């Protein structure tokens, strides 16, 4: 490209939804801090195998549970395993399950809800009855059945959790879409002859993003705890691996004897959740197309 011949446009460039969103988000300090923290946690998790101070399964039975010290910054668990290392490895699992399962729930929930809400009528009735039926199934039995069919595989566990978490999402999205589809901008898009899927994707879903994002930030902690619960039943991850949920679960049992086993994993989990909540809040405001840029 020849810079000298660069053509300088004379017409104003329309601002995109995402561009706007970024500008608005960058003004929200709390949301930015949240984003930074989430990125930090993800980065640490990703790099854990290279930067962890010890092996996550390395035991030192003679040492046992020891409080934080210069050698073990967060202390050790009853097997003498370094807690910091285990939190780092646990974060890999917890963040992974949090994001993957939520993403699965988002994709299924949004498409299901948006289609049902937009098409309405019989299709809507049928699709919502399916959701009702799945709701009525005892949730644990459903997820256990999925695990039995899929087998004991971590990745499949994530999908299985996502596959049961999308129901509420679908309902929220459907409700939003139903109120949106009668609005003028949708009708004008329809009048211009845009195909249905474009209308749904370009015009309806972005307008429904607020509640979706809020709900997604609530889903992430949910699935993290759910993973701990399933793992405890023997359906999820197995020792010596661990996740934040499991670490907290074990920590609760010994909180009087070895409080650090509860405090540090609890801190990691709550910091992440705070960060996600601030980020979600910021994103909701930033992505709302109804608020114009300044």
């Amino acid at each position, binding site marked *: 490209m020849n810079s000298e011949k660069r053509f300088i446009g004379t017409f104003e460039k329309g601002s995109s939804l995402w561009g706007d969103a970024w500008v608005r988000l960058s003004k929200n300090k709390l949301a930015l801090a949240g984003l930074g923290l989430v990125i930090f946690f993800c980065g640490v998790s990703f790099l854990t195998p290279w930067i962890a101070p010890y092996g996550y399964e390395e035991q030192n039975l003679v040492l046992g549970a020891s409080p934080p010290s210069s050698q073990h910054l967060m202390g050790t668990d*009853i*097997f003498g395993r370094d807690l910091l290392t285990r939190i780092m490895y646990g974060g890999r699992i917890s963040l992974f399950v949090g994001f993957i399962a939520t993403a699965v729930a988002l994709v299924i929930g949004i498409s299901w809800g948006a289609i049902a809400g937009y098409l309405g009528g019989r299709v809507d009735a049928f699709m919502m009855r399916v959701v009702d039926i799945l709701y009525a199934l005892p949730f644990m039995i459903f997820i256990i059945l999925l695990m039995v069919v899929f087998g004991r595989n971590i990745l499949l566990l994530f999908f299985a959790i996502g596959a049961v978490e999308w129901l509420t999402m679908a309902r929220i999205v459907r409700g939003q879409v139903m109120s949106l589809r009668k609005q003028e901008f949708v009708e004008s898009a329809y009048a211009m002859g845009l195909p249905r899927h474009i209308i749904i994707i370009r015009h309806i879903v972005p307008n429904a993003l607020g509640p979706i994002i809020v709900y997604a930030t609530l889903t992430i902690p949910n699935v993290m705890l759910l993973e701990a619960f399933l793992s*405890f039943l023997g359906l999820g991850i197995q020792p*010596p691996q661990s996740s934040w*949920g499991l670490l907290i*679960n074990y920590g*609760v049992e010994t909180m*009087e004897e070895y409080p650090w086993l509860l405090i540090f994993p609890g801190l990691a989990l709550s910091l992440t959740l705070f960060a996600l909540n601030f980020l979600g809040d910021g994103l909701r405001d930033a992505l709302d197309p109804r608020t114009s840029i300044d």
Partner: protein
Amino acid sequence: MSETISPATGSIILSSFRTITLVLFLTACESPETRVASGNKTGTLHWGNGTEPQSLDPHIATGVPEHHIISALMEGLVRKDSNTLEPVPGVAESWAISEDSLVYTFRLRPDLKWSNGDALDAHDFVWSWWRALQPALGNLYAYMYFPIANARRYYEGKLTEFDEVGVKALDKLTLQVSLENPTPYFLQLLDHYSMFPVHQATIENFGKADQRGTRWTHEGNMVSNGPFKLKKWSINREIIVERNALYYDNANVRLNAIVYYPIENGTTEERMFRAEQLHYTNDVPIDKIETYSNKKAHSLRINPYLGTYYYRLNTRVEHLQNKKVRRALALTIDRERLTKHVLKGRQIPAYAMTPPDTKGYFPPVSLEFDPEKARELMALSGYPNGKGFPPTEILYNTNEAHRKVAVAIQQMWKKHLNIDVSLINQEWKVYLDSETSGDYQISRAGWIGDYVDPNNFLDMFICEGGNNRTGWCNTEYDRLVLEEAPRGETDEERFDIFRKAETILMDELPIIPIYTYTSKNLVHASVKNLDPNILNQPSYTQIYLEGETD
């Protein structure tokens, strides 16, 4: 009997939170008076019983929790002194043993009654024992009867007439039992629930005599002959037994009722104890032992317990068929560290199946902790430095302490043999099912003595033993345990034979002994007369409650 959930600390995040809230809620608003305080006034003992019983039918049950309840509801010919475990008169007021120790003649107490008022006599025992030996009933403890003449042949279908089995009611109050061989521990067997009498009319009222799972043991139906009778059974909540006024020694029974709580989660149980909701806990969570040993109130009781914690190796699995591999696995468990640093409950490292000093028997010891030799054995078996060792799984029933042991052993094998072992946990009944159907590779197990004799720990590994479950079968072992040992005239002679048998067992290693149990309970200060014994079998007829003393 098979140990169900001994050191239970399992916690499920959601449900444990719920239980905690529930407990707090109950404590907060039930009444200012705790269960313990009100129980002390009414003579009601609140007993943490581990898990929901599989059944209250004495011919079907196999576990420790069942034992606690059944021993309150029923009584056999003989009881055990709760301190010395010596036989003392039960339903039989006296007995005579023939010179050759082969014929036992029991004299029953006169005017014995079932809890519904029916008369109980020697014929009830004959009928009960006939029922216990019906193959269709699937009684896992049928082999307890094998010392009785012809019982084994009858059970195996080689005899069809029960008349030929050595049990006769000479008259209403006299029961004569003939044995196959002199069996020095025979009187002890009679205090085991598999030999308790059951009420014929009630059982036949609710189904066929040899039908499993009929409603005869349910609330309102069950008729029994013990110091207590069943009052209420709410599944997974509580089982209440109350005083049986028709029990012959009712005047000396001091408790009015016992409430059994099936609390599988040790942490929850400990919290309930602390909130004075329980008089007695089934177990103590590992991490609480230290806390309680430092407390002034001496509620923690740790006693020797005649039981062995071990791992079963499924010898039908290809790579575990190799004796050298099994030995290598057994040699690389550092039992000293495990008991001292992980379990912390004064357990004793076990290097043989039978606990040391079982009635004076000391097992032969050929195991030790020797990773060097284990690595050699692995190399000889074609897995140098663990290379090519197939993926292996340890199965355990969902429980915090079992998980801790498994995690420690997993790491020991990884460190010393460089093999990767994964862990699977299953709920108690699913786990039992996997184990019995042979659908496992390595599984954790525990065996608690039913009576004090090495025979109890060794006869379960005979080829056909219902509690063997490893697929291991050795004809020489069977011959020693089933044929030679019962013929031994003195204990020394029998023990020599048992040592030979156990040497075979510990050479073949279908099981890896890990530690000898201790019983760990929290007992409220108001509980009196609860004698410790190595079978950890309480005598509910003696226990009484007393108001706060401190």
